């Protein structure tokens, strides 16, 4: 069994670096899941291919989804992801310390994506389907929510979802990032380019306050 796999990886790719993607998942995961983000990042900066592979696997799905929420162009989002990761790799030795890889990648990605959208808009007179401000980061009831003990019935949950979707898009975005992406206020503030963490906290708080009438009934 083991031999077959080794032969396969040799045949698939003679280049060691890209063979990494096909490296047994378990190998990469065992090495890195136990490590803190800071350690994984340090390995990546030191040129460790497996560390990069781990970072890519772990975050590319979330980043892609995030990008698609902001701008519904699959091509542009993938293009932006590619450029971002290439830049990170090219400048890896010069990168600073990172505590939380996810938050850092979201921040860099958001910045790059906006630059790219601006550029595309200029060059192709507005063919990029950047969603209007009213029209992104919509919320839906998650499947897990059905599994836990119920204070709210299905009707109430539907109403809550509706109310959440009536909030300003930026509020929805911050709430999704806080609950679904599990980012901190500090990270959200950096991603949304607020100069103060307080702004992110207030944004969420004011949004939730508007839902209070529903909470109290339920």
């Amino acid at each position, binding site marked *: *069994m083991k031999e*077959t*796999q080794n032969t396969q990886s040799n*045949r*698939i790719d003679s280049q060691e*670096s*890209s063979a*990494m*993607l*096909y490296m*047994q*998942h*378990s190998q990469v*995961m*065992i090495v890195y899941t136990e490590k803190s*983000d*800071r350690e994984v990042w340090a390995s990546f900066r030191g040129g460790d291919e497996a560390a990069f592979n781990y970072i*890519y*696997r772990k975050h*590319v*799905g979330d980043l*892609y*989804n995030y990008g*698609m*929420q902001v701008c519904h162009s*699959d091509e542009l989002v*993938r293009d932006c992801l*590619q450029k971002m*990761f*290439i830049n990170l790799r090219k400048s890896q030795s010069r990168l600073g310390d990172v*505590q*939380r890889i996810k938050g850092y990648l979201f921040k860099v990605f958001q910045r790059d994506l906006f630059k790219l959208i601006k550029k595309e808009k200029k060059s192709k007179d507005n063919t990029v389907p950047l969603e209007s401000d009213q029209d992104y*980061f*919509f*919320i*839906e009831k*998650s499947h*897990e*929510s059905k599994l*836990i003990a*119920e*204070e*709210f019935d299905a009707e109430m*949950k539907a109403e*809550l*979802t509706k109310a*959440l979707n009536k909030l300003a898009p930026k509020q929805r975005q911050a709430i*999704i990032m*806080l*609950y*679904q992406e*599990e980012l901190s*206020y500090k990270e959200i503030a950096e991603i949304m380019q607020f100069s103060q963490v307080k702004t992110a*906290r207030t944004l*969420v708080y004011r949004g*939730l306050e508007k*839902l*209070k009438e529903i*909470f*109290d009934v339920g």
Partner: protein
Amino acid sequence: MSDEMNKKLLSRTLANKMRYRDFDIEDFLSDEFFIQWVKNPGEETNHFWMKWIENNPDRKHILQKAREIIMLVDYRTRYELSDQAYMDLYENIVEKSNKVGSDRRHIQWGIWHKVAAILFLAFSTVYSINYFTGLDSKKDQAQQVTKWLSVYNPAGQKYRFKLDDGTIVHLNSESSVEYPETFDPSRRVIRMKGEAFFNVAKDKDRPFIIETENNQVKVIGTSFNLKNRGNFELALEEGKVEVEGETGEIISLLPNEMLIKNKNGDVSITAYDPMEVFGWKEQHLIFKDDTFQEVVDKIEAWFGVKVISKITVESGWSYSGKYHDKPLSQVLDGISISSEFEYKIESKTVTILNPQTK
């Protein structure tokens, strides 16, 4: 959140136990330490909140409401990077950041061949499929041998069965499905030929992928009919599916839409009649404006017989009719009455004759 951050939050919170006493629901909802516990409960945080509830029993329902709201929030649409895009992107990143200024076209061809090779190897070697599909697996399953099973229905046979994950497959006649005995932890991959109706068990962490000759269908939990006989036809009943073609283009379908890709590569999305498309699995044999050849093909596949026609039908001949769980003779009776022909059944052969030739 990282352990470090977690510890900081915990110690800060423990140092200030009183802070939650006057919390209202919106305060819980915006408290990082509380959210952290809801999303990723740990031993220490569990202990903290259980103790807190014990000391503040009147606040329990507020806490529970806040918990539910936090769990409730999800993206309305979660966009997923296709497997192909996932691999291509990685290849591009690695190659382009290593070799500066190399020929772009050359690299892309190289990747294409590599991916083709991987697909080929993975699908031609039954036991090592985990190696390929295990990219995102959460557990160490790579060493485990995956046993592939296959079901084939000859003409005249239909079969309904359940996969390891609870997905129900209705397999039509002259069709086959290949599937692993147990699915990979990260994705559920099967292969099919012919026609089948799938009621895919929901599992958002493990997309369900159906490989056909030229297309890949990716879903999370939904029901649809897939027919791949010459044309590729996918009719979606519920949920959402994505179809990825050979060249990587992805088409998404909504409920009540049917995607048709014909052999020339023409693609269309239309509405459909559920009875016409799904009826077969409930034993409804449906003819709708069918040509003589279509009627013959359907009868052969449905009943597992050979039809020999000694008649020539006029151009423009068509037949419509519905039969629910009826034997061959009744179906032939129905068609022959409206079309004025006679028939003979001899074991597995049906002969269609003109009345005057008798």
